[in-house]
């Protein structure tokens, strides 16, 4: 019998899941991928657009072309999932019955959830580089910026690529230095976190980098309002930060259809899944991959990549009526651009925070340390993305599970929480 697999989302997670499942299950399954538009954007490239270091038209490719032969692509917004009837209803009236459903529709940007932010964006006072149009608009604004205060603000967590706001600050520092006006620009990172990053050792290292580059850091700032006319961010507890130009990472949530599918998502529209098997807590025939899931792992392309192998194995087991044996460990791997042609690399999982050392083993790229090699790695990654990640291939020498080889893990990490 042919199994029907429906995948909602043709981004990083959905595409690589479809390709892995097709390769592993062959003609025994019929795979349909659904997305709202035809452009697959290489999201890690968005960071470079505002600094005119990449041409925006080089970042997008057709979604359907990234899928293996034999996979159907249906371009239409999803309306809702009927969990009981095991059907997906699309906005054009199409009904797709499924034996297994993969939620891979990522995270949506919700600027409307922050008071004053839509107006500030419409008036050209606030920008975001988290989508292509926004990144291009910000490029124009930065080109015309001759001095003043720039506030880089993360409104709330979770967000995609939690290191991107830091990278933006580092790259802006380099950008204004190269233009010879760095001394006329005040750069401040305004974050709800209590430091530069979520995990202790990396937070210290990255906080130190901000400091050395003369970038201000305002912590535990929960933005309640963006006041465009006065040029200030106002926090819920009444503090404010003045700006001439605000670079805002808007609130993230799940896609609207998740909210219209009773039982599927949580209060923010993300899909609760078992953090190891990636199986939905709502129904055993539903799985989630990438940003759409409510995992405590980063919302990052590397996470979707590492999840891919586990997801494909567990869906194959589920369809065969066998127990799910593959387990995701929270593995995340991120290059962090630090400006001036250098980058850091972090590699971590649920249990191990980012630490110094080398990756993927004792001989390799330096971890949590600035290096030109890492910058070269970040640039090379774009090729790997289109030719290895999306096709759903393993990267030689880099298994889905994190390894401790090459890592210098402190005996009792400061991240370690004593709970008993």
């Amino acid at each position, binding site marked *: 019998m042919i199994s029907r697999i429906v995948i909602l989302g043709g981004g990083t997670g959905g595409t690589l899941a479809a390709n892995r499942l097709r390769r592993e299950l062959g003609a025994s399954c019929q795979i349909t991928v659904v997305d709202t538009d035809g452009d697959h954007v290489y999201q890690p490239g968005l960071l470079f657009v505002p600094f005119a270091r990449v041409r925006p038209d080089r970042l997008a490719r057709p979604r359907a072309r990234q899928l293996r032969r034999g996979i159907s692509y249906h371009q239409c917004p999803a309306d809702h999932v009927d969990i009981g009837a095991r059907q997906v209803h699309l906005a054009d009236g199409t009904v797709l019955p499924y034996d297994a459903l993969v939620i891979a529709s990522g995270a949506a940007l919700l600027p409307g959830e922050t008071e004053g932010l839509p107006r500030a964006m419409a008036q050209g006072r606030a920008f975001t580089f988290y989508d292509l149009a926004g990144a291009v608009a910000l490029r124009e604004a930065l080109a015309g910026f001759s001095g003043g205060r720039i506030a880089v603000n993360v409104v709330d*967590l979770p967000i995609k690529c939690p290191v991107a706001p830091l990278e933006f600050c580092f790259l802006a520092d380099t950008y204004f230095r190269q233009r010879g006006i760095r001394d006329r620009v005040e750069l401040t990172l305004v974050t709800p976190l209590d430091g530069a990053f*979520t995990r202790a050792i990396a937070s210290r290292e990255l906080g130190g980098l901000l400091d050395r580059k003369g970038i201000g850091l305002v912590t535990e700032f929960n933005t*309640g309002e963006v006041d465009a006319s006065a040029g200030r961010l106002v926090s819920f507890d009444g503090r404010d930060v003045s700006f001439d130009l605000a670079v805002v990472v808007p609130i993230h949530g799940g896609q609207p259809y998740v909210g219209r599918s009773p039982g599927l998502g949580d*209060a*923010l529209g993300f899909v609760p899944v078992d953090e190891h098997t990636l199986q939905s807590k709502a129904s055993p025939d539903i799985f989630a991959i990438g940003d759409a899931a409510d995992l405590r792992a980063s919302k990052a392309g590397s996470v979707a990549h590492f999840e891919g192998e586990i997801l494909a194995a567990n869906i194959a087991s589920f369809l065969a009526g066998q127990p799910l044996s593959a387990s995701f460990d929270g593995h995340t791997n991120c290059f962090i651009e630090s400006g001036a042609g250098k980058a850091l690399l972090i590699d971590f999982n649920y249990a191990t925070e980012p630490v110094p050392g080398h990756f993927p083993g004792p001989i390799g790229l330096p971890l949590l340390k600035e290096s030109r090699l890492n910058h070269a790695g970040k640039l090379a990654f774009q090729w790997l993305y289109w030719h290895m990640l999306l096709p759903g291939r393993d990267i030689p020498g880099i298994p889905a599970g994190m390894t401790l080889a090459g890592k210098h893990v402190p005996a009792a990490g400061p991240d370690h*929480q004593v*709970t008993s």
Partner: protein
Amino acid sequence: MSSMVYAGTEVSVNDEGFFTDPEQWREDMAPEIAREADIETLTDRHWQVIKFMRHEYADKGTGPSVRALSKISGVSIKELYELFPKGPAKLAAKIAGIPKPRGCI
């Protein structure tokens, strides 16, 4: 880890004062924990939030973020900050006797 005495009963707390065993919490301890955080009186609105925190913890194993708390409880984020100044999710969790909400990464 250390211990505190609330409402005449010794309970285990972590370095930041969060309960390590939510089972040890009783309603009559809440006003004392609140006073330590400069909340003199717990109103019905405070209690509504505290009960939500307990319920969410029992349901999901962690307290909600401020935004999720607001969406689920129907109390606006602004009001949450008025009720629990500085950090509603953390402070309400502490008063409700549940562990510090797991931060997102």
